[in-house]
């Protein structure tokens, strides 16, 4: 079973289908491998190639936001490095 789902061939991210710890070597559906740099929990996104700051990030080949900083392959892609192009995500739970 694949550990990562790549939803469209042009996407720079894949979705973890199990909890992946930092430093694990995971295999992509095309057989290539990446080493995780951060923890990637089940359902979270991981960069599968280098993403530049201000680059649009695609999932299912649809833009889901813009990278706020450079993201290296193997890093989790989430609130710390991706912002909405529509309405900012609020993070607090009061």
């Amino acid at each position: 079973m694949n550990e990562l789902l790549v939803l469209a061939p042009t996407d720079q991210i894949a979705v973890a289908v199990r909890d992946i710890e930092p430093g694990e070597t995971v295999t992509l559906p095309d057989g290539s491998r990446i080493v995780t740099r951060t923890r990637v929990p089940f359902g979270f996104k991981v960069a599968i190639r280098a993403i530049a700051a201000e680059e649009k990030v695609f999932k299912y080949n649809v833009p889901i936001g813009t990278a706020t900083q450079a993201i290296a392959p193997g890093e989790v892609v989430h609130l710390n490095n991706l912002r909405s192009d529509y309405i900012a995500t609020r993070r607090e739970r009061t």
Partner: protein
Amino acid sequence: MMNGYLRQDGRKGIRNTVIVAYLVECARHVAQEITNRFRGQCVHMIGFPGCYPNDYASMMMRRLTTHPNVGAVLLVSLGCESMDRNNLLAEVRASGRPAELIVIQSSGGTLRSIEAGAAWVENAISEIAAVPRVEITAADLVVGTVCGGSDTTSGLAANPAMGVAFDLLVAAGGRAIFEETGELIGLEHFMAERAVTPALGEEILACMRKTEDYYRTMGQSSFAVGNAEGGLTTIEEKSLGAYAKSGQSRIAGLIKPGDIPPYGGLFLLDVIPDGEVRFGFPNINDNMEIAELIACGSHLILFASGRGSVVGSAISPVIKVCGNPRTYRAMTDDMDVNAGAILENEATLDEVGQSIFALIQDVAAGTPTKSEKLGHQEFILSYKYFTPIGPACLPRVA
């Protein structure tokens, strides 16, 4: 073979429920006490908490009390609130349903109102047992979809599987409604391209511009903290998952709350109020969306969840489709479908979609859903403002 309840307007219900409806919060306790006497039977409570008049709330109460799943209606009024109880009563009676009004202030207060109401409901249950039964097929059904407690699996498994079921329903001549326009932000151009006419596509784009403006004014998108804890990062990523529940059919119309789809096909429900922002968030929780889908005639609701919602609804059964296999195992009693099997390679998307379509037909034939069995009957209605849809929104109506 499904067996429906034939109503005077020709629509067919899949349940024969007695509704106890409070017309202001001040009448809710009496309505609740009446409803509580009939636990385990088809008696549900709905209501409107506000004291001030609102066209949207009146329209919603009229649509809900004349819904095909409703067999009889008891209205419970305090007496001094603004809801136009006499016209509402007249409209329900004109629909051929047994209906009664109890005004607490002229019925001797709480206890006597509860006794009178419970006695009326008891009689109504026997009376509506005689409603004619008729064959009902998928082509007679209106099915709404909603998602709540979304995580990344909602978009990977639950919503796409519901989309497959929606395609099967549309192919069978049924009416399918998807909504949560606040959670379709980012997909506006895809939806416009799927519209059956360019003019309908323009209406969809205008609706989505209104949606984005509305949420921008509120300073918050339709994105909860739990969504991020489940791996979703932006509203457009959440939207991508929500959008998948629409399936692949062309979009045959754009409707607003209370508009009943007039022909078979896939419809987008615009839930964002028109005009200036005036009553707060468009829909403050999932049940407010569900109530609007039901007011559009939905016989049952498909509800996708990843983090694990437990809600059901008054009037129409809710089928829970869980995309997250861990949540499914943790909350099996609440979940009707384990779409997470797709992520664990135990079932294909098509197989789960087909099983949802089969379950729609079972539930329409009378099989209770998990939330029905557990007694979930959530309901909420609040203030909103809408203007009527334009002629381009329903291209197949001459």
